[in-house]
């Protein structure tokens, strides 16, 4: 009896001891615990903010990737700010925040709008260089523009249209409400090229004269107003995917020839399916790299003033290129 009690108690002690030890060891070996000690990282030389309204899109990610690569190799901190959908006032607000934060440089997608121009000018007055990327606001005090020459894009698409048509055609433009400046430049590029051709007639050359609505509404009114126009140039990415959807709801998509300027995954898919005839291939990574390099050149004073424009290469791609 006595022995049994002692054995039972000893067993209990040993088992509980082992379990306790397990917990204690567990506790001390928990390396996932971070301590909230102040980080002693050295400040990097420059703090640069990159503001975009297309966070999360594939081409933008590539751009950011390129910019980050340069930043990391040059002891520069790069902050990515922005919105997920185009929102002009939000972008202006973020530029204001960047100014208040006294960053060393701002990379921003340009919007040709007085408010945007004003805030960019304000930054320049406070000594913060602004470089517009991907799209421009040429009348602002931005230091430089890095991105595709949108006029040339238009020219290239127009040349492709000229090359591929067999009989006289009507060409019409579809524009969306965003980045009108960019779309205008593309349209100008197309028009300037096509005007020399007798066989091609532009159906709606004054697309920007009216106030622009959303791509969906624009596409409906375009189809309603120009029933004979079978060649449609979608001036922005939104427009390209929207026109395809709208056509599909009312007639056979094969009857239409659609041209685009962007190379996001949706458009590439449509290109592959033969719905879209041609688009322009961009190199967003190069935009990111180049813009950062130019910003650093400016900050280090190696190149003053900067070139007003730095164009990255672009080329027409068709179904066969994929």
């Amino acid at each position, binding site marked *: 009896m*006595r022995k049994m*009690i*002692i054995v039972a*108690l*000893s067993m*209990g*002690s040993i088992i*509980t*001891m082992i*379990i*306790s030890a397990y*917990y*204690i060891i*567990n*506790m001390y070996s*928990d390396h*996932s*615990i*971070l301590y*909230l000690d*102040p*980080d002693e*990282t050295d*400040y990097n030389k420059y*703090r640069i903010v990159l503001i975009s309204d297309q966070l999360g899109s594939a081409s933008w990610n590539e751009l950011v990737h390129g910019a980050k690569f340069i930043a990391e190799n040059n002891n520069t*901190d790069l*902050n990515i700010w922005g919105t997920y959908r185009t929102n002009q006032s939000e972008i202006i*607000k973020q530029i*204001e*925040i*960047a*100014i*208040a*934060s*006294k*960053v060393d440089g701002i990379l921003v997608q340009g919007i040709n709008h007085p408010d945007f121009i004003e805030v960019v000018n304000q930054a320049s007055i406070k000594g913060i260089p602004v470089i517009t990327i991907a799209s421009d606001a040429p009348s602002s005090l931005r230091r430089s523009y890095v991105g595709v020459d949108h006029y040339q894009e238009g020219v290239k698409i127009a040349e492709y249209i000229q090359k591929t048509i067999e009989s006289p055609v009507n060409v019409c433009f579809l524009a969306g409400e965003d980045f009108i400046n960019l779309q205008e430049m593309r349209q100008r590029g197309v028009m300037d090229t096509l005007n020399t051709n007798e066989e091609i007639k532009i159906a709606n050359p004054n697309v920007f004269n009216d106030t622009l609505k959303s791509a969906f509404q624009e596409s409906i009114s375009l189809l309603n107003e120009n029933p004979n126009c079978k060649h449609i140039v979608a001036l922005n990415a939104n427009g390209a995917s929207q026109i395809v959807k709208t056509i599909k709801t009312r007639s056979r998509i094969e009857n239409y020839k659609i041209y685009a300027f962007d190379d996001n995954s949706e458009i590439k898919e449509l290109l592959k399916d033969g719905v879209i005839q041609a688009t322009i291939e961009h190199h967003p990574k190069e935009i990111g790299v180049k813009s950062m390099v130019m910003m650093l050149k400016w900050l280090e004073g190696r190149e003053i003033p900067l070139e007003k424009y730095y164009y990255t290469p672009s080329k027409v791609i068709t179904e066969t290129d994929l």
Partner: protein
Amino acid sequence: MNSIQRKIILLSLFIWMLMLGIWLFMSYHNQKTIEQYNQILQRYLLMNQVSNLSENLIATLHEYILEISDEQLASYENQKLELQTISVQLNSLRNSDNYMNLINYENMIKSQVESTELALVSFQNDRYEQAASHLDQATKISDYIAEMTLTILDRELKTYHQFYRSIIQQSTNLEKMGFWILLMASFLLLLFSYLFAGSITRPILKLTLAVKEISRGKFDRQINIKSNDEIGFLANVFERMRIDIKKLIGEMKEKVKIERDLNKHKLLLKESELKSLQSQINPHFLFNTLNTISKKAYLEEAYETSDLITSVSNLLRYNLRQMGKTVTILEEMKGVQEYLAIQKVRFFDRVQYDIDIDGKCFSFEIPSLTIQPFVENAFIHAIEPSEEGGEIHIKIKDQPEHVLICIEDKGKGMSQEKVNAILKGEASNHYEGHSTGIGTSNVITRLRLHFGIHDVIQISSVPEKGTKITLQLPKRSKNINE
């Protein structure tokens, strides 16, 4: 030797240490967790404070512009200073994830302060338009600061997500650990208490059993308890006591036996008294008659007869006195002499005797009728059967410790068996013919009882040479008789 106390104190100490250890361990960990929580809270509070201060600064400036009081200005200056101090403190929140945001944050605070300063200066220089625009700017920045605070807090939550999770995990771990450690402590305590209590109570139990055994009167089982505390000591003492009791009981039994013997011999004494009473036919009449006969014989000039009768009378008187009382040797010896005188008349020349008494022994007290039976015995066995008679020597010697009484005859002696029988008191039926009716065995027993020792008599007898009886009586009696 206070080892039970020591054991209990040791156990208590052990419990105390164990509990203290567990308590310290748990408190240490709790403290650590609390510190971590505090740290987190501190961060959040600091950021919240920045946001509040920035808002208040604008509000105060507004109030100043509306009221223009020195008090407001001072309060504005105060708040500005506070905001600047706190923006320096923000450095302590820095980590690799948020440091850029923090720099932005600090710069925004600076921008705000600059704007408010500009607004103030413009206002004081009466450039109200400019002041308003600067104030608007400052308000905007203050909004941005509030927003940035949220962003940083959000970032904070993301960065330390793992950390917070691990804190929660750790606190649940701590809880479980506490439970198990408590369980372990309980088991350990039970085990140790059991062992300790056992080491104390087991010897007690054994002792109890031993005591029960003894109380049932079984003294033979040895008490064997190996314990170094008081119980061990008790057991040892008890063991000694057991041995003592066993010995004492043995002695008591012997004593009882002796007492029984005594009673038996008291009965014998009574019997002899009865016998003497039976022969006591009105002693006064007998003495008077004997005295009358003695006087008559004296008047008839038969002097010897007269003396003889007087001797008989004295002897009778002596013999009839109360038995059981002590007498001095002198009194006893007078009786013996009367007896010898009578016997001298009877045996005439056939008997020779001499008495040699150390005068120091006269007052030594002995039971009455102790020497005479031996003398009578000598007559009966040594003188009467022999035609040519014999000799009797009586010697009483004083020794430092003892009084020696020797009665020696030159008779035919006795065999060793008979000597042994006498010493054992078995020859008690041989007292026929004794004048007192008291045999030697009666005397020996009475002597033994009176003096409380066994060795009161030595009998050395050589056949055909004689018998020597030596009574060795101690001067200081142990007196087991009353």
